[in-house]
């Protein structure tokens, strides 16, 4: 059985992805040009948003659920991180896990009513939540060491900044830290997709009636998915908070949630590679455009039209097209002897 497990193509693909991810996470800071300064900081944030993108991707690609509130949940994760840190001064790793749990609870509470209805109502409700969270976050701000529940300093008091985790003090150390956390979380998510919950999710997506007839509790499994993806998104919020120690409500607008959804569908919702591409598009592309002197707002136009195209014609996104390319190229690069198939 053990050998069977490792010869499964999805398992091998996941292991290759894990290895590539770890090499990138640890090796990228050594590269000249991209390995320092603004480029590295941008890549760090891209990697963090890949987690949020993975949340959207798993929900849409594996369960057919549309969640347009993911950036709001990142804000919830970041808020919880700062709140818990300023209240307890626990090590960052503990705070991160707690923040992920808080985000999971919020995600489930929001999605619970809508899950009983069609997929369209979840899309509507999550869009409404995105709008509401944007205003709430702007109103409440992020804790910066003040008193009270909101934890805001007022008047002339200096804001307290949450220090970076002990293992990631400098920029390149922090990139490696983020990289390892992202790879580990994505690996856990991939593992979850390969074992029973993931297969049940796939069964629900294939046909709900079939899943119900097999005795699957579809609402419970959808809730599990919401909880897992929200927790992953909460981790993204925690890492974002750790990066700068302080967060700005202006980075969590409702249109960012829509943008993230667009990048995930363009990147490819059926694989975690698509999530990584989505993260790169989401945060890297505006930076790239402003570096070459173009208005960052054009990203909305490009990605918006890309979303229409992805929905209508290219369902598997860029990741799907890359996988197709690989399937075509591989026999030419490494021709294999044709195996005899006995029936």
């Amino acid at each position: 059985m053990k050998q069977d497990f490792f010869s499964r193509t999805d398992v091998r693909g996941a292991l290759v992805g894990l290895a590539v991810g770890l090499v990138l996470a640890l090796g990228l800071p050594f590269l000249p040009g991209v390995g320092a300064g603004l480029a590295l900081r941008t890549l760090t944030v891209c990697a963090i948003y890949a987690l949020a993108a993975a949340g959207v991707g798993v929900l849409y690609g594996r369960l057919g659920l549309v969640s347009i509130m993911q950036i709001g949940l990142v804000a919830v994760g970041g808020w919880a991180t700062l709140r818990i840190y300023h209240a307890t001064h626990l090590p960052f790793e503990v705070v991160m896990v707690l923040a992920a749990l808080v985000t999971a609870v919020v995600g489930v509470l929001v999605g619970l009513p809508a899950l009983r209805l069609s997929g369209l109502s979840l899309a509507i409700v999550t869009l409404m939540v995105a709008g509401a969270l944007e205003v709430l976050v702007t109103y409440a701000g992020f804790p910066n060491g003040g008193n009270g529940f909101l934890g805001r300093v007022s008047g002339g008091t200096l804001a307290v900044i949450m220090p970076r985790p002990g293992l990631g003090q400098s920029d390149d150390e922090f990139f490696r830290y983020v990289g390892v956390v992202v790879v580990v979380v994505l690996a856990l998510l991939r593992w979850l997709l390969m074992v029973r919950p993931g297969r049940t999710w796939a069964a629900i997506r294939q046909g709900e009636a079939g899943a119900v007839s097999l005795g699957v509790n579809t609402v419970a499994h959808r809730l599990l998915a919401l909880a897992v993806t929200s927790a992953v998104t909460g981790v993204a919020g925690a890492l974002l908070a750790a990066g700068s120690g302080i967060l700005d409500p202006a980075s969590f607008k409702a249109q960012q949630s829509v943008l993230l959804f667009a990048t995930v569908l363009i990147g490819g919702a059926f694989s975690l590679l698509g999530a990584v591409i989505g993260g790169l598009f989401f945060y890297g592309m505006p930076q790239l455009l402003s570096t070459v002197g173009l208005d960052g707002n054009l990203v909305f136009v490009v990605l918006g039209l890309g979303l229409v195209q992805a929905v209508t014609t290219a369902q598997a996104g860029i990741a799907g097209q890359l996988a197709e390319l690989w399937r075509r190229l591989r026999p030419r690069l490494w021709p294999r002897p044709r195996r005899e198939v006995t029936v």
Partner: protein
Amino acid sequence: MNLLPFVVAGLVIGSVYALSGVGVLVLYRTTGVLNFAHGAVGGMAALLVWQTVELRMQPPVAIALGIAAGAAIAFLFGLVAGPSLARVDQLRKAIATLGLALALLGVMLFVWNDKARTMRLETSRISFDVAGARVNVTQLVCLALALLVVVGTLLALRHTSMGTSMRALASDRELAAVVGTNVRLVENTAWAVSGAVAGISGILLADQTRLEPAFLTFLIIPELAAVVIGRFVSLWLTLVGGLAVGVGQSLVSAWPTVSAFSTAVPFVVATIVILVATRRRVVTVGVVRA
């Protein structure tokens, strides 16, 4: 505290939500597309009106131009994306319009940046007192127009041939095509009409609230709440829903302690309606094509 001004303001905003919601509803029933870009189309129209008035165009002409632009944008999207959208499920149709919303928002931010502007229609300068609340003519126009559009839509759906075709499509697209309905023509008409409605409501909302791209784009949220309250079928309930959401938001914003939560009103209302409206979802046999 005198709550009457808040109730009046809420009723006015709510009537525009309802007006806009009718546009969303007609398009949704006819083509199956729940248009998330409805607010963005309205924002585009409002900004065009603002821009052309700044360029010294006569306001009535500018407004007509804005409404025509709204209709044109929606019509073009329906024309180009409609055939592909007809082949995908309802959720994907809705998602595609999310892309349109994003693209329109990008264009607006690119051309006009995200500064909050104000736009005052000529009619807003004439105002009078009603029982201690100040009411201007634009607000009366909002209320009257919402009522007019609901009644007009009901009559048009019942008594014109285009309305009959729309109801046929809403009932069963395939069957309507079989009996000889010109599906594309009807759908394109629905897109254009809903675009015009979006333009009108966008201009009115820009006058009543503020002229800011992202803000106007996300006014789709309370508009959708109105449609949800109308259970995606009823025009009258959509009107009631719009008014309820508008008044609710306005009243919540009257108290300083909870005023920040007023944007959560559509979410709370829609969630309650979703919970109450249907007890169980119907599981249908079907295979998702990836």
